[in-house]
């Protein structure tokens, strides 16, 4: 584990990094699992005592490295420091994780009580893989893709629609720059040329359902390109197809959604929305523009705090907004008329896949008999089925990318 500054307060048992501690004769590798667990508990207890004496340490920085660094033996359960494990679930870890991840920093008392589960606390998200630093572009990665990958991995571009449009726009640039090598046809070779670009994007951040659907459509269009077309014509045709896809499946779809959804907003309504969905933003602006008198409650959550931008946009348009964080949701839900949320995708069983925290908002709304309206274009429909938020998800931005001071 990469030690943070607070690691100086080490228990007498020794640093939990695989080196034989002063009290042990054998290396940790040689110990049985039970003995290792005992050692862990001892170390944790000592640390807890030490830390309680020194005051609760803050969240360690450089967290992502902690998750991944092995303990000198791949099979060993990671001895977690008290603060580690406690901070782990509070990490802005999973962008779309279960609500357990949203617990605030637990007090020391809770921590000692939950000692047994702390090792699990670290392992619990291990199946999401380690957050990888964006590797240097290998092979022929087009600069547009390299730039896009960086923007994805640093969460500069977020949101299903935004990512899809950005990806397709980058692909248009690539297609225009592409030159068919001799003895190859565009319809066969272009796809093999695009594949490493796509992999680079996926390495930066797992592909969204929207990107997947759009790329599938693009592949279909490419393979259907007329063999006899001169190259520039074929490229122009593909770019036109991409433009049509964006226009029809996203822009115009959003307009249709705007019209139908804004009809569900009546005068005097209190609309609640979560985080920032591009579609919901459009719906609210449309309803306001058509003269309806309503107010909006924007519920937001760390670490992305996307709702702030939504409040700025809505207030500028003249809509009365209230802003609050997710834990305060219960206080306002009884005043809400309708909840509008966006979606990353909708599964075949009707389940909605969206920003982490949306499930909480929906459950709270149900409890108060408030209708929940999901605004989602059809190109976001996914053929998969997910039964929980846990098995297939992705980790969000690591804390190290943020300063620990409250800021925008």
């Amino acid at each position, binding site marked *: 584990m990469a030690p943070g500054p607070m690691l100086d307060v080490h228990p007498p048992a020794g640093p939990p990094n695989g080196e034989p501690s002063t009290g042990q004769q054998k290396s940790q590798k040689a110990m049985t699992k039970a003995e290792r667990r005992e050692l862990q508990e001892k170390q944790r207890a000592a640390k807890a005592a030490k830390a309680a004496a020194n005051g609760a340490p803050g969240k360690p920085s450089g967290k992502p490295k902690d998750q991944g660094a092995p303990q000198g033996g791949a099979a060993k359960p990671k001895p977690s420091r008290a603060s580690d494990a406690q901070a782990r679930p509070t990490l802005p870890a999973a962008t779309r994780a279960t609500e357990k991840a949203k617990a605030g920093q637990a007090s020391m008392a809770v921590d000692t009580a939950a000692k047994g589960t702390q090792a699990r606390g670290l392992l619990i998200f291990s199946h999401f893989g380690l957050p990888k630093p964006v590797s240097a572009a290998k092979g022929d990665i087009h600069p547009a893709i390299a730039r896009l990958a960086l923007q994805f991995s640093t969460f500069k571009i977020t949101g299903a629609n935004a990512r899809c449009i950005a990806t397709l726009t980058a692909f248009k640039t690539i297609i225009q720059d592409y030159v068919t090598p001799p003895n190859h046809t565009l319809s066969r070779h272009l796809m093999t040329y695009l594949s490493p670009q796509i992999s680079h994007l996926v390495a930066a951040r797992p592909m969204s359902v929207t990107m997947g659907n759009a790329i599938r459509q693009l592949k279909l269009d490419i393979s259907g390109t007329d063999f006899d077309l001169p190259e520039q014509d074929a490229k122009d045709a593909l770019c036109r197809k991409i433009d049509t896809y964006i226009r029809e499946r996203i822009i115009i779809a959003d307009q249709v959604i705007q019209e139908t959804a804004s009809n*569900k907003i*009546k005068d005097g309504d209190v609309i609640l929305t979560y985080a920032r969905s591009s579609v919901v933003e459009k719906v609210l602006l449309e309803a306001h523009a058509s003269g309806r008198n309503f107010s909006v409650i924007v519920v937001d959550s760390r670490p992305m705090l996307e709702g702030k931008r939504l409040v700025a946009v809505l207030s500028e348009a003249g809509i009365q907004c209230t802003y609050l964080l997710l834990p305060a949701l219960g206080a306002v839900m009884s005043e809400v008329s*309708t909840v509008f949320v966006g979606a990353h995708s909708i599964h075949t069983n009707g389940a909605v896949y969206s920003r982490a925290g949306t499930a909480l908002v929906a459950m709270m709304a149900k409890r108060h008999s408030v*209708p929940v*309206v999901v605004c989602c274009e059809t190109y976001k429909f996914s053929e998969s089925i997910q039964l929980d938020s846990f098995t297939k998800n992705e980790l969000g931005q690591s804390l190290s990318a943020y300063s620990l001071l409250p800021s925008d």
Partner: protein
Amino acid sequence: MFELVQALNDGAEELKRRSPNPISLNAGCELFIAFVTLFPHESDNFAELKKELEQQGRKYAAEAISFRDKIAELTLGFIKDDSVILTHSYSRVVLKALLHAHKTKRISVYVTESRPRGLGLKTYEALTAAGIPCTVVLDSAVAYVMDRVDFVLVGSEAVVESGGLINYVGSNQMAIVAKAANKPFYALAESYKFHRLFPLSQYDLPTHNPNILSLTTPIARSAGQDAASSDAAQEATATSQTSRGISSSVTERAMTQEQIAKNPGVDYTRPDLISLVFSDVGILTPEGVSQYLVGMFAG
């Protein structure tokens, strides 16, 4: 084609304006307009197409009359001998189903009075004329009678996209009580009543206006004025009661027209309270209704 649809839409609007309760009318109009646009036409010129559309329209109207018979036949399978059925207000399709069942089974029926229009009494008369034992129950006695009942059968103004039901006010109440008492709640609806509405709540219906359930600060009136208005109301009820053939020696108070106007005429029943929807396209679950609607209007 667009102008034709425009003309149809205008005509439908006019019809809706004239009717006091436009929901089922709405449903029928939208269905026909959708049919016109989605109808595969191989005709070469407009005159032929027009004739074809007219023919189809008339055929549909003629068929529609037979829908109630189909529904009555489907309902028969769910009625056992000595069934006690609860129904609400007056519905031609329910009436047809009950009369059809009476030919081969022994049934008895409770029907709600269904204020303010009192249409339940119309049902009462029709059923007793046919020889079916029938009793009118107060709207407020639905929960009281529910344990005696085997199942509930209601008609519909419209069946909406969520699978829910729009019917005379009191149906939602009946459905909730039936659910609490674990009795099946069946809705009978012809397929032209399937509507693309999706109400998010009771107040999201097109029939809802701000006057309904409005609360106004009353102006303090003198006692004399009060008595005069209530007397007038009593007289109104007395005359209407005698005209209905019900004698009542007890002076009953009744709502004024103004007060009645603040009340809804229809309400919305959620799909999870409905057991089955019987229609001419078959016996559907509420989820099946939305699937059918999507299939219909998606072409």
